[in-house]
């Protein structure tokens, strides 16, 4: 492999930070014409992400979202200058705990990787290539290896410590974070999810969490103050309320929630949950979706051809080709499992109750919640079925991110069980969620089109036919059903029909 040349100031973080500083100067009332004019100056990869985000019907939420990320990166940068500890966390570690420290700030590996992929020309490929050049296997996860590859170049922003909360739910994530801490020689704090989803597992997890808090306090040199914890927890609770408002709005048929809001929601969860900026971003999403509902504006149209739930990850390397394309084809995105953290309001009575609430949040973070614990298939399936029913999704899609060995391990049985218990079909794709080399977006679009045309439209047609037949039979059948006789379809028969689809 050719050596990847990465010069000073060419690390992912600094490049993304520079670009966001420029984008942050755009006026929130920018017109479509102005947007197009400015974006045309940008390289194609950057264009495709910003063109999607700066759509006129998304602007208030997009600006709130970009401001959230800009403040997040600004503060990390300032924290470093001020001698505070910058702690690199994975997406499945709730950042609110670090926000409660005065002397520490959280940066999230996967969010940085995604931002690099989204807004940088050449996406994250040079950093991935650098990591591969070190000999790391090509079946690592691009979600964190891109950012960590950049850190390993030595030309990027280096964290002071790394927290890892993937032991028990993802070997790849745990390994790469451990690897980077080893190479950088920075402290590494691990939070394990025990292999048990019941009370016993939760109790041990709580002890592990409190132990992590103590070790972080020692590392930062600061005991967490109750008032700081409460301030953050109160804001977490506001975020939680808004999260469920958005969930409810998304479930409407047709949905008034734009496809990309799934990403805005969990990017906020992974970065600025428990902060004013996080609240503002989620509120902007909720307000915009409500306004859409009131004026009957539905991003995927009134006649949605499919409402897929992505049962693990979506694709992040081409917003225009993914989120916008789905909506323009009548596909209403119901989000993905990264949204499935099901936050709960934190009891702010005292320090113990707050920390227990934060531990509960950590227990329920995506991936930890689904893949940790007893059986990978069981909890994952439960959440998928819950989300399918709660969001009125009519199909599910597995994106097949190649690195997710734990989901690939049990996908076959989960797909069967989804069909059996939720009565919806599942499309299985293969690709890398953060790298376009494996499966280009055009191929993904073709597969989605074939699925929608051959399965979803067919199901809709058959359902319509079934309704017509029932309606015809109903005239005689209703009387028979009332008498408990033949002609009344049972719920089991309904599921049976879905299975056949």
């Amino acid at each position, binding site marked *: 492999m050719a050596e990847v040349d990465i010069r000073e100031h060419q690390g992912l973080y600094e490049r993304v930070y520079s670009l966001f500083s420029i984008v942050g100067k755009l006026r929130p009332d920018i017109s479509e014409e102005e947007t197009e004019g400015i974006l045309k100056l940008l390289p194609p990869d950057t264009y495709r992400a910003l063109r999607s985000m700066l759509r006129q019907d998304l602007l208030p939420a997009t600006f709130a979202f970009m401001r959230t990320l800009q403040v997040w990166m600004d503060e990390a940068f300032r924290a470093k200058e001020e001698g505070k500890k910058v702690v690199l966390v994975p997406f499945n570690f709730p950042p609110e705990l670090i926000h409660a420290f005065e002397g520490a700030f959280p940066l999230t590996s996967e969010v940085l990787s995604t931002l690099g992929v989204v807004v940088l020309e050449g996406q994250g490929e040079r950093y991935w290539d650098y990591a591969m050049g070190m*000999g790391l296997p090509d079946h690592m996860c691009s979600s964190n290896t891109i950012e960590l590859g950049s850190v390993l170049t030595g030309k990027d922003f280096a964290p002071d410590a790394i927290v890892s909360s993937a032991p028990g739910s993802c070997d790849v994530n745990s390994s790469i974070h451990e690897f980077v801490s080893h190479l950088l020689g920075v402290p590494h704090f691990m939070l394990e999810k025990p292999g048990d989803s019941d009370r016993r597992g939760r109790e041990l997890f709580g002890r592990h969490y409190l*132990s992590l808090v103590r070790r972080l306090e020692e590392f930062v040199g600061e005991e967490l103050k109750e008032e700081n914890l409460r301030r953050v927890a109160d804001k977490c609770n506001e975020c939680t309320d808004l999260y469920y408002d958005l969930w409810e709005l998304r479930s409407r048929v047709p949905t008034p929630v734009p496809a990309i809001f799934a990403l805005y929601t969990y990017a906020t969860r992974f970065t600025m949950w428990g902060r004013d900026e996080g609240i503002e971003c989620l509120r902007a999403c909720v307000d915009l979706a409500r306004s859409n509902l009131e004026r009957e504006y539905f991003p995927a149209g009134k006649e949605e051809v499919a409402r897929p739930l992505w049962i693990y990850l979506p694709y992040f390397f081409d917003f225009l080709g993914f989120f916008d394309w789905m909506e323009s084809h009548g596909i209403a995105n119901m989000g993905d499992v990264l949204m499935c953290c099901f936050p709960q309001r934190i009891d702010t009575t005292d320090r113990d109750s707050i920390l227990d609430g934060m531990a509960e949040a950590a227990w329920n973070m995506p991936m930890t919640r689904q893949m940790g614990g007893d*059986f*990978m298939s069981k909890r994952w399936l439960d959440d998928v079925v819950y989300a399918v029913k709660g969001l009125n999704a009519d199909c599910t899609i597995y994106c097949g991110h*190649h690195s997710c*060995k734990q989901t690939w*391990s*049990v996908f*076959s049985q989960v797909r069967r069980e989804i069909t059996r218990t939720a009565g919806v079909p599942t499309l299985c794709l293969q690709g890398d969620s953060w790298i376009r080399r494996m499966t280009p977006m055009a191929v993904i679009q073709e597969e989605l089109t074939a699925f929608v045309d051959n399965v979803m439209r067919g199901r809709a047609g058959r359902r319509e036919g079934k309704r017509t037949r029932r309606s015809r039979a109903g005239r005689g059948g209703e009387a028979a059903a009332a008498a408990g006789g033949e002609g009344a379809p049972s719920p089991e028969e309904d599921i049976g029909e879905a299975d056949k689809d």
Partner: protein
Amino acid sequence: MMDLKKLASELPNRYVEEARERGTKIIGYACLATPREVFDAGGFFPYRIRGMSVTRTELADAWLSRFNCGFCRSCLQLALEGAYDFFDGLVETNGCDHLRGMFENWQYAHPRDFFHYIRVPHLTNQDSMDWFVEELELLKEALEKHFEVSITEEDLLAAMSLQGDIADKLRRVYESRWGDEVRVSGGEILALMTLEGSAPAEDFSRLLDEVLAEYPSRPPLKYRARLMLGGSATDEIELVSELESVGGAVVADSFCFGGRIFRGEEPLDGPPLRRLAHRYLYNLMCPRMFDDYARRKAFIDDLIERSRPDGVVLFHNKFCDLHGVENVKLRMDLEKQGVPVLTLEKEYGAAADIGRLKTRVQAFLERLGK
């Protein structure tokens, strides 16, 4: 000792047949984190699941995927073909994400009446230790309840004592290669190590007696260089033999079907299950244990110092994330110490891969100046 390879290549071997005739219950397990003494103490025959270099995995691939490691797919293939139907029960451990998937699919598609899951912590601390002790108690209770047996402290102590004797004998054969003269090949040692998991303790102990009596009279092997192997779980005896055929004598390894089996010493005090828990949890030497690299590295350093290899060959099965990353760390650190290292990614059990691997090892021997 040629018979060892043959014996190791049979799944329902003569020990299985004898156990069935005696009415001994056979329990399948896969991971080195499973304390076999608990089974021994209950009169069970713990049988370690192997992939047997199976390369046709179409049944398994319908459940696992092409993104899962070939070793686990091969084990599942054998299970779905019915090759492990002689098991009376199955015990899962969360060794890695692939292994978890293998067990979940096995139990979903081809269930056993007795299925138990030992949840092994990934960290070594007091909380994890207490948890693992409870896990072993739960295992014991599950076995007792389902099979209506009683496992007493005395039974456990006797089983631990027998395993201690076995480890001593096994170590004598294993370490016999550490002098200048090597009389036992790496392929034979791997065969012996796989038999450790597919023979009842007493039978294996007797087998070791035969080996110990036989090997010293052999002529020394001719070799170009001394090699140490390490990496992903593998029971590929033929692969090791093929690599040795180009002149590299395997004098040590850190495989879980290999050098990791010795598991260090257990504490002398405390209830037997706590002693066992401590010995297993703190001596797994597997990258599935996080924040434990220093201990693994020390284990490998010690092996290198005592077995004096000219170079180290580290393998990882395609899609084995844990060893894929671990091998990079080890390579970097060992090379800093001046130890030559070759890292190889391989497809488990693929005969087509052997030629390529032999070429790489040949080139490595040349690099070593041998």
